[in-house]
């Protein structure tokens, strides 16, 4: 490779050598404290600082201008001098040559006139290969002087699914298994990815795709992906399965026995569509989604006073009730001033008071980006720089909070001065939203307004993708980007065309959440069975089958109360309040805590846990919650007994109520037998009644602790 005209450039050649050789990675000299007294910026995010460190720091020990080959920076990586980091490159390598020639040229410094990298391109962007196949990637960098360069050998490569595809240091991909993997590329703080697809070795007839029902554009795109992977979609679900599933996913409640019977008996061809419409108009739908957005906005009396918590919740609830546009909902938070009592949305600024907290929460909650890493250095996984972090933080340095008339009220206002300094440059950055435009430091306009405008702009893809992914993931069981709150550039979606189409649709139709939910629920992709067929047993990403999931804690508790007719008492709330109506995650409930209700401390989807635990099992077996409701004299079991219903009728009712379907003949027979056998041959009428009651409680207990009840399937 010939030396370029003008010699090797520090920023565009030397730094990439240090990065590719691993010198400035976090485990070595890029660590916070460096190694052996030698500290470089992580992955070369600040070439000017690195230049001083290499040439002049420590009285110039690392570079020998008079005798370049004896420079420490060459002796160490080639192991001429003992090196804790081992051999990084050999003396006859291009890496050595670039460093040595740059030193011999007198270590020319980085200059503001250096061409800057604008972006990367990869070829091929996508490839479909058989298992065992290989693909060499080619990465090109585009620069500010309109030139391009092949930087393939300098890129850092990574695969997000080694089981499908692995990639070596030279950018050569090898397919290890069927499925799809994204090979992410990092070069000079720019990121990109290439998609490697390897269809499954299934025999899927063409009709499997062409004959599969398509209700809207979602189905076209899902089926296209499944076809490219040779995965056959599972079939459509029967009415009973659909009914229970859609009730739970839309409103977090079970259908009543009556609603089940009515729906199953309805012969109209569009009953599913009508049911979805009806569910979206229910109060419970509003409660369910208000709860979800309260999770997102961390509505909790842990830091807010109870009345403030209530005000915050009420604003969210009203907004869902009105089906307020998501962009307007968000804008209201960032463009309002005044009393947190009169405008519940403003409690957001009581929860997040300083620019650091606001920067990190805002980007996580509304953009699905995790910016925290960039607080101290350029983000290692994404394109965000430390400078951008502090440009963003300075948007939030003038949020004023002062006490209102009573202790639970605060007044939010825009201060006319105040800045946050970049920690190394020791001066404030011009307030700039992530990849938006700056506003002047000396402007006294409300900086939040500038931010809100950028945030909710139709051009801001992250904003739409973040909320679309959260809604989609809630309904479909897995986000298009997974985890559900991580839509960064280096975490590609399992179906990028689909993600883009749904986001576009969402933005073009007014950021309408209700419409988005309706569209998803009506798709055939949503109405697929959870059962695997021969081809899709391992698929949980591409929506070839419904992803079974455990009911969230609140839904579980409410469902139990609903089936047994015994509401759960919550301290300070009227009897009959459902868990999904609680405005505050601090309301005491051992059941909810054990089953993973989020504490609403940090904005992270993993706060809501559905991991199983011993505590949960014990709670179900021995705990008070279920057992008390079963034996409650005011509950439905007692009621059904008092009404004098037969075992068969009780079994049927409970099955309809808990499972949303009629019992099968086999079930009827088995249950009749079991209940019959449980009656003692002898004993007083009292004892007989007691025994019967016990048996029924046991039966219902078994139903309510079964997977069919506790899971959404």
């Amino acid at each position, binding site marked *: 490779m010939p*030396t370029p005209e003008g010699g090797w450039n520090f920023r565009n050649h030397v730094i990439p050598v240090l990065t590719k050789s691993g010198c400035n990675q976090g485990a070595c000299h890029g660590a916070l404290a460096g190694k052996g*007294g030698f500290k470089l910026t992580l992955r070369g995010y600040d070439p000017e600082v690195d230049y*001083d460190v290499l*040439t*002049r*720091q*420590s*009285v*110039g*020990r*690392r570079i*020998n*201008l*008079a005798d*370049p*080959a004896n420079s*420490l920076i060459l*002796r*160490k990586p080639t192991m001429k*001098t*003992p090196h804790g980091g081992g051999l990084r490159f*050999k*003396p*006859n390598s291009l890496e*050595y*040559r670039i460093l*040595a*020639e740059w030193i*011999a*040229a*007198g270590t020319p410094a980085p200059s503001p006139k250096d061409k800057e990298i604008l972006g990367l391109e990869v070829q091929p962007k996508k490839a479909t290969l058989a298992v065992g196949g290989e693909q060499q990637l080619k990465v090109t960098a585009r620069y500010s002087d309109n030139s391009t360069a092949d930087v393939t050998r300098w890129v850092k490569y990574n695969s997000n699914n080694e089981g499908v595809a692995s990639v070596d240091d030279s950018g050569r991909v090898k397919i290890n298994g069927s499925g799809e993997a994204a090979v992410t590329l990092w070069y000079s703080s720019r990121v990109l990815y290439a998609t490697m697809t390897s269809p499954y070795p299934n025999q899927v007839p063409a009709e499997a795709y062409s004959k599969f029902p398509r209700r809207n554009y979602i189905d076209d795109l899902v089926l296209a992906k499944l076809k490219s992977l040779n995965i056959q979609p599972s079939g459509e679900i029967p009415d009973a399965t659909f009914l229970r599933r859609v009730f739970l996913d839309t409103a977090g409640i079970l259908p009543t026995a009556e609603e089940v019977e009515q729906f199953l008996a309805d012969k109209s061809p569009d009953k599913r569509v009508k049911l979805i419409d009806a569910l979206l108009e229910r109060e419970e739908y509003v409660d369910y989604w208000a709860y979800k957005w309260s999770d997102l906005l961390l509505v909790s009396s842990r830091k807010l006073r109870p009345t403030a918590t209530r005000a915050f919740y009420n604003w969210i609830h009203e907004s869902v009730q009105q089906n307020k546009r998501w962009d307007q909902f968000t804008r209201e938070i960032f463009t309002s001033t005044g009393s947190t009592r009169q405008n519940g949305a403003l409690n957001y600024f009581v929860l997040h008071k300083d620019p650091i907290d606001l920067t990190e929460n805002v980007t996580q909650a509304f953009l699905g980006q995790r910016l925290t890493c960039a607080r101290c250095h350029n983000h290692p996984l994404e394109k965000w720089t430390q400078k951008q972090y502090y440009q963003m933080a300075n948007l939030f340095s003038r949020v004023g909070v002062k006490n209102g008339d009573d202790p639970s009220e605060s007044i939010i206002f825009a201060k006319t001065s105040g800045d946050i300094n970049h920690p190394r440059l*020791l001066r404030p950055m011009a307030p700039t939203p992530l990849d938006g435009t700056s506003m002047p430091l000396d402007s006294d306009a409300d900086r939040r307004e500038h931010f809100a405008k950028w945030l909710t702009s139709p051009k801001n893809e992250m904003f739409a993708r973040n909320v679309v992914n959260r809604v989609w993931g809630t309904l479909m069981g897995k986000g298009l980007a997974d985890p559900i709150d991580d839509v960064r550039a280096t975490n590609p979606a399992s179906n990028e065309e689909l993600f883009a189409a749904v986001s576009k649709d969402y933005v073009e139709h007014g950021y309408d959440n209700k419409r988005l939910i309706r569209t998803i629920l009506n798709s055939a992709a949503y109405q697929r069975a959870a059962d695997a067929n021969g081809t899709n047993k391992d698929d949980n990403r591409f929506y070839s089958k419904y992803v079974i999931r455990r009911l969230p804690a609140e839904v579980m508790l409410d469902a139990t109360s609903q089936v047994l007719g015994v509401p759960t008492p919550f301290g300070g709330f009227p009897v009959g309040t459902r868990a999904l109506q609680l405005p505050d995650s601090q309301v005491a409930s051992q059941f909810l805590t054990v089953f993973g209700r989020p504490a609403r401390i940090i904005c992270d989807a993993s706060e809501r846990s559905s991991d199983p635990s011993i505590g949960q099992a014990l709670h179900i077996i021995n705990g008070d919650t279920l057992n008390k409701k079963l034996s409650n004299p005011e509950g439905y079991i007692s009621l059904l007994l008092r009404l004098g219903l037969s075992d068969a009728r009780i079994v049927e009712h409970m099955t309809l109520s808990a499972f949303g379907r009629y019992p099968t003949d086999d079930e009827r027979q088995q249950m009749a037998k079991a209940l019959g056998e449980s009656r003692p041959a002898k004993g007083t009428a009292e004892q007989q009644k007691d025994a019967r009651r016990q048996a029924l409680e046991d039966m219902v207990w078994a139903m309510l602790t079964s997977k069919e009840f506790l899971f959404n399937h």
Partner: protein
Amino acid sequence: MRVAMPFVQRVAQVFFAASLSLLAAGPPKPQIFSLAYSPDGKVLAIGQYKEVQLLDARTRKPLGTLPGHVEVVRSLSFSKDSKRLAAAGGVAGVKGEVKIWDVATLAQSATVSGHYDTIYAVAFSPDGNTIATSSYDKFVKLWDTQTGKEIRTLKDHIDAVYSLSFTPDGKRLLSGAADRTIKVWDTATGERLFTLGEPTDGINSIAVDPTGKMVAAAGLDKSIRIWALEAKSARLLQSQIAHEDAILKLAWSPDGATLVSSSADRTIKVFSVPQLTEVKTIAHQPDWTYALEFAPDGKTFAAGRYDGSLSIYDVNGFRDIAEVRTASTR
């Protein structure tokens, strides 16, 4: 000592060495890494790559060269009687070396070898019998100047030790290190007496005032701090952010009234002490000023830089009264 290597590598070495010399931009300007004035005010010593240049302090005419150092001469120290000069350096990552020269005859009187890395500071004790060295290897060592043998090693710093200073009475030795501390040692016993831990980042330079009652230190946290040195501890008198980038070197005027600092922010600043009131900023320094030394008469101070330039500033008005280009005899 060459280790046998495969033929291919030897060929590659020759090839690349040749191509390096083809591409080199010409002999580099002799860089300046350290300076020292002899206490009698007659000689200015300049530490360069592999050699020390001696200039007449008044006329700046060359007096001679002290050659044969293994690499850069990073620190210089004259004995109090001006008769001997210790020049310290070594090979980065490998070893330290000090050559002790007889100033009158330009002959080498002793060599000291030791440390596992290059030496950053060397200091003659006031009585001339001992030199202290400190190195990137985190150690401070005391050596006998007659025999060149090591007396003891002072082990306590946990990072490179860049700066040393004896108190004028020779009883204590102070060391400043990248581990953000200054340590005070008893020279007779080697005992570490106490540690000054206020700095918030690595120390590049310390300077003890002419009376031995105060010490100033500065480094990566851009601040200058001054302590009063007491028997069992030090009392922080001043702490002030002085520059916009790391401070490289401090120099205390012989009358104790002025402190000068050089920084990576390409300025030299003059402060009146002990209040640390800024008197002057000499801006637009052409490069990093590693070396800063007052002439013994206190009328001027010299600044030597990475790019080989040398300035002599007079204390009235801070004009550069010398345009000196050092020559290389290589």
